[in-house]
């Protein structure tokens, strides 16, 4: 029987998984848009995005627009790769659970 894969713990958190998936569908997105789409609080969202950023899965660009700070997030190549591998691992685990 083939060894079952481990799920990447950085992506496994539901909010981080949602964030990475959202960013996979767009080129870039603002902090406020991510907050609205995930219905999360500023503090929690910022903390989870920081974890993804530390892992090198998202990149952030901070700038000022009309004197207001704006944080623009985008998924990196590593992040896209990690998400793809996570989905493959998830499918493999699901497949083994069904055949077990």
């Amino acid at each position, binding site marked *: 029987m083939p060894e079952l894969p481990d799920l990447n713990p950085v992506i496994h958190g539901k909010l981080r998984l949602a964030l990475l998936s959202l960013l996979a569908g767009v080129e870039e997105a*603002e902090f406020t*848009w991510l907050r609205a789409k995930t219905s999360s609080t500023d503090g929690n969202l910022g903390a989870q995005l920081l974890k993804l950023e530390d892992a090198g899965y998202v990149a952030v660009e901070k700038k000022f627009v009309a004197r207001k700070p704006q944080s623009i997030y985008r998924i990196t190549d590593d992040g896209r790769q990690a998400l793809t591998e996570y989905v493959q691992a998830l499918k493999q685990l699901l497949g083994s*659970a069904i055949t077990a």
Partner: protein
Amino acid sequence: MQEQMHTQDLSERLSLIESMIAEGRRSTESWGWVFLLWGVAYSVAIAWGSWGQGLSVWGNRYAQIGSVRIGLAWPVTMIVAVIATLAIGLRHERTSPSTSLVRSVVSVWVAAGIAMLVLFPAFGASGRLDQHIFVAIVAALLGVANVASGLILQWKAQSACGVVWWVTSVAACFGSVAQLTVVFLSAIFVCQIVFGIYAMVLESRRNRREIVHA
């Protein structure tokens, strides 16, 4: 039992990924207000242009500036609509994610809009613009933009609107000005106002959908 919960959790995660990726893509499709705005703008221009004169002369209301007669209703209404679109669009852009899908669709509409803004003043200055030609060109360009957007977004309803505009464009080559006006107003009502409201209802339903919490 635990095994079943584990499988359910894995399935939920897979669904979450799919729904979030789709959410990101769908969020770029908030165009309903633009259709409604322009539908109202066209209707206002026709009403203003024909006020007190009947439906057959909606393009003939002029202002005399020195020795030059300038049609007012359409240029003024269209300029106001362009300014409103830019103002609302720029605000909308700041809160929306950027995607190549958005850029593609916006490019199609900007190109069609520029074609109209360049062509009609030139026609007006040359004195060769009549209502049949005006409606035929507007409808043909709106047909192109709607069908192109519909194909990019894989949105059949929008492509159908494009076909309605092309039918209007062909119909504009025939009949009286009064008949032309009825055809034009019908197309505006269906493809701008009704379609715009339909798109806004879809967007509103989508925004209300429950989002998974962390």
